[in-house]
């Protein structure tokens, strides 16, 4: 158990550094889509929610899992769709100098 949690902490810390590296250079233009997009990614809890809702045989746990699943799915579906909707609006200037 000790070893497992230590490896998990390793992964967590390294992933934070990856996050800093990848995101630091994002221009302000894209801050809102970045936020809603990363927000959708944080909905990855959906994986845990699926397991909670579908595994085991304790009904209270499954119902809680389903509630979690509803929340996480709103987060994932809503987040990705609204990000796409915003990014679709970003257009480059159409040959201004004729």
């Amino acid at each position, binding site marked *: 158990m000790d070893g497992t949690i230590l490896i998990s902490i390793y992964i967590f810390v390294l992933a934070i550094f990856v996050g800093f590296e990848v995101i630091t250079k994002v221009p*302000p233009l894209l801050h809102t889509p970045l936020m809603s997009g990363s927000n959708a990614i944080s909905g990855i809890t959906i994986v845990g929610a699926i397991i909670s809702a579908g595994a085991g045989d304790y009904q209270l746990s499954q119902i809680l899992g389903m509630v979690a699943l509803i929340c996480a799915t709103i987060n994932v579906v*809503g987040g990705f769709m609204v990000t796409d909707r915003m990014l679709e609006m970003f257009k480059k200037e159409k040959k201004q100098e004729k």
Partner: protein
Amino acid sequence: MSVLIDSFYLLSAVLFIIGLKNLGSPKTARKGNLYAMIGMLIAIVVTLIDKSILHYTYIIAGIVVGGAIGAYAAKVVEMTSMPQMVALFNGFGGAASTFVALSEYLADVERGEAFLFSNELIITIVLSILIGTVTFFGSLIAFAKLQGLMSGAPIVFKGQQATNALLLLVTFALAYMLMQDASQIELIYVIIGLAAVLGILSVIPIGGADMPVVISLLNSYSGLAAAATGFVLNNNVLIISGALVGASGLILTNIMCKAMNRSLANVLFAAVGTSDSSGQMARGDKSKVTEYSAEDAAMVLDSASSLIIVPGYGLAVAQAQHVLQELAQILMDRGVKVRYAIHPVAGRMPGHMNVLLAEANVPYDLLVEMDDINEDFQNTDIALVIGANDVINPAARTDKDSPLYGMPILNVDQAKSVMIVKRSLSPGFAGVDNSLFYDPKTMMLFGDAKKMVTDLVKELKDL
């Protein structure tokens, strides 16, 4: 958990990282979002075929209901309401973490395995529930403030921070008690209650103008909540994704704080912004300013050769961004060089103003960041300010006693002449008078932003 499933989770994590990377450039951003979507889809499908899944009724119900709500919300939300929407999505992410951790815990206790709980497991369960619940309730308050359901003014009482610290302390004490006997289910419910209060108390003292920071921070929390759940489930894709989002939220929080020249601690605890700007009395004396009519201003604009437009949130509130772009287009057609200068905290969330202008079909290459355009103001004929105030206040540069002092501002005062569209002379969020209004080279155009810009368009067409 089989090797195959874990490899697919790794693939998902890689797609998230590539997706985020691509979100960093306007050309590839849509593709980046798509990569992240595919990553998510892979993670979901792989989980669904996991052999530990026994029944699908609740899963199908959850996905259908959640998917419908999410899709509907994403379709109908107004771009001005984007900050509330993201706050709410953050909150749901947090709630999901709480429910998953609670569900896992209760299932294990029910199976009579409470005595098997290691101390680490209890810590991760409590953290997952704590962060998730704080995120959910904090986001609800942020949503209510942004949506105008409650006042944007800070709510403070004596001993607020001490209360928060105490709540946190009690939570940890309860976690310690759980370590002695993990089957005390009622303790978990008390922890949820404490975390709810903590979430509410930590957001109510933060003023409406500081919301961009709060949303960024809650975004970071929602990532940390997911990561904490990953520790509970011992699932690496949750840990990696949660860490990525946690980092991205922290970066944005930091950028927002810098743009306001405030420390995070100051934003969270100082309760800046005594009331909404709408409630402020006009302090200035109108007789000391140069007032222009739309007709005169249109003539000035027509004779200019370069123009920088400085949009603020007041522009979006008045829904004037579309007609503003019409104005810009007319001037560009007449050979005026037009650009937009965007302050990092323009709007109610990071990058909000860019989205609002993109919706009004403003090409993104006309939108210039503060640092890239500040040098150009001195060579520009007119700076047209609409609905912005504090971000152009020269007091931030000169007046050491001003609460704005040190905040990076747009150098509007260096333009050859300045045109400001504003309802009255009332100060902005920070409650500070703006000396630029009284500058002889400043033309004040009093009125509602949308009506005034519409009038300018009309006058320009008549010229």
